[in-house]
């Protein structure tokens, strides 16, 4: 029952009702405008940044110079300096990161969400993982320096760097895996159980495929972050000047596959960019901007696999 006399009066007056609807519609319009504005601010910032990088890096990015820029090692001469060792290093490091972080992260996420008994220990672990996602990356660098470099004696290698970044993005992968699993409607599980599926079958055949879209988003966010990291890699001893590439992973003679590259010293794109930005010669600023564009493209390429998979998974889901 409505007791507010003013409201009662409105409810009995068609003109007032129409007026009220009009007013609420106006508010809706205002909100939509506000939404557009927010979107525009975010998008414009991105466009301006990318355009700025593109324009400043263009002298090295145009088709005449790009092949040389991509195939030259660093140099003290801005015109000679390229990013061969940097992009190869970035790619190999991120490969190790993905191979380590994705199975571990998804596995831990599934266990925590589906199997772990709900008790104080789980709460404790959950709080810690969520907090770990917000720990500054340099802390991971220090941890990795002590653990990977000195205790495990892996040295300043691609393996160390990949595992360091894997630790860094693990919390993100675990948290998003759990969130995506949780978002699957209960009916799906009940349906599977009702035809006699075991818990493992339910998870593997139904829950996991449906939540893959969300999980892949988490992986994309994590990988992008890892590709842009400098601080933890400098801590574990990434180099700045290195002109040779790691050992090739594929060999002509048996056993054809070699893992020597894992132990190789390396540099990555963000470190080169940082070095060039702080050089006195203005010409190095161009190199830095061009390297920034290459880093953006590399990030998109690495993520494109995940983006494609996500598209496939999402297309096949119909609730």
């Amino acid at each position, binding site marked *: 029952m409505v007791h507010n006399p003013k409201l009662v009066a409105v409810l009995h007056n068609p003109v007032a009702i129409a007026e009220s609807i009009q007013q609420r519609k106006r508010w809706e319009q205002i909100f939509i405008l506000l939404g557009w504005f927010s979107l525009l601010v975010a998008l414009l910032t991105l466009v301006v940044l990318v355009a700025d990088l593109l324009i400043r890096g263009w002298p090295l990015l145009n088709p005449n110079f790009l092949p040389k820029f991509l195939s030259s090692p660093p140099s003290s001469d801005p015109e000679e300096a390229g990013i061969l060792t940097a992009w190869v290093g970035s790619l190999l490091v991120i490969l190790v990161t993905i191979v380590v972080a994705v199975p571990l992260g998804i596995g831990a996420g599934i266990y925590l969400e589906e199997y772990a008994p709900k008790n104080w220990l789980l709460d404790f672990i959950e709080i810690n993982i969520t907090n770990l996602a917000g720990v500054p990356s340099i802390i991971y660098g220090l941890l990795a320096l002590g653990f990977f470099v000195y205790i495990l004696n892996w040295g300043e290698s691609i393996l160390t760097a990949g595992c360091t970044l894997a630790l860094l993005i693990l919390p993100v992968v675990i948290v998003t895996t759990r969130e995506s699993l949780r978002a699957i409607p209960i009916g799906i599980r009940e349906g599977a159980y009702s035809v006699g599926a075991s818990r493992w079958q339910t998870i593997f055949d139904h829950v996991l495929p449906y939540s893959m879209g969300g999980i892949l988003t988490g992986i994309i966010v994590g990988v992008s972050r890892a590709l842009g990291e400098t601080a933890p890699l400098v801590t574990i001893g990434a180099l700045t*000047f*290195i002109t040779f590439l790691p050992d090739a992973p594929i060999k002509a003679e048996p056993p054809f596959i070699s*893992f020597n590259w894992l132990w190789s010293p390396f540099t990555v794109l963000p470190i080169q960019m940082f070095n060039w930005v702080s050089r006195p010669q203005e010409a190095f600023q161009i190199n830095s901007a061009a390297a920034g564009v290459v880093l953006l493209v590399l990030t998109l390429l690495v993520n494109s696999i995940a983006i494609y998979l996500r598209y496939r998974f999402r297309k096949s889901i119909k609730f």
Partner: protein
Amino acid sequence: MSISAKNIARLGMVAAIAAISSTVVPAAFSQQSAPVIRIDGSSTVYPVTEAAAEQFQKQQGGKIRVTVGISGTGGGFKKFCRGETDISNASRPILAKEIEECKKNNIQYIELPVAYDAMTVVINPQNSWAKSLTVEELKKMWEPDSKINNWSQVRSGFPNLPLKLFGPGADSGTFDYFTEAINGKAKASRKDYTASEDDNVLVQGVTRDRGALGYFGYAYYVENKNKLKAVAIDNGKGPVMPSDKTVLNGTYQPLSRPIFIYVNANSAKRPEVRQFVTYYLSNGPAIVKKAKYVPLPSSAYKAILAKFDKNQVGTAFGGKEAIGLKLDDLIKRGLQ
């Protein structure tokens, strides 16, 4: 969804195999085909060593590999004294703490000055009054708890214009040296100035403000001569502008400082390290010029090379900063 499930299974298998095999492969495989010279340390010395490494590798046709990292003078010495690097770049002499650390690990080193850096005090091009400043005036501006915030307080006759200060952050070797040379104590500085580890930020700051004053390495001034004005420094003997000449004849004081490389004495026994250091010192002037620092005279490089050939270990500075050290003293002390 059975296809996707299979895909996941396959993906998982590949990932698991890769993960296991990559961790099982022993570190024994890690040797490289070509010998590697490992260098790390100061970002100030980096451009010089980078140029040397690049030209040396080209000359050798890639038979010898050189890697250079930037972890700062202090960070570089940490690795050097653990025996992880062959050569350490340093923008100041090795400190007592680091000498101790090296001794503990039985690491001996050969100390080699490679160039001079002239810390440059810069002002906005529109600043027509501060053609020169005395060390005392600089100290008045930069000392801890300094209350000076207007040019008129620096010297009577200077205009009434707010003074905006720009300088490197506290982690920088340039900061350590400047505070020691001007304020008399390393790291003792007023804190209310615009600080950045990126010297290009300082260049921009000084370019934008008529009342600005900043300091940084000579190379940044040389590259931005059209946007900035250098201040002549008066150390009691009249104003002196920073230049190759005034640095070398020892009149630009107290803001010129030597920069060094330290060679691990054990590594120096390896032929490739010997070759590299010999190349570095015999091509010193060209390499240093390329990196926009002030090269030592050729005779000095000869003397320093002779020191290296004799494997003279130890430091000539007793673990302290080398303030106001003239070239002759540097060579003499270096050859003790």
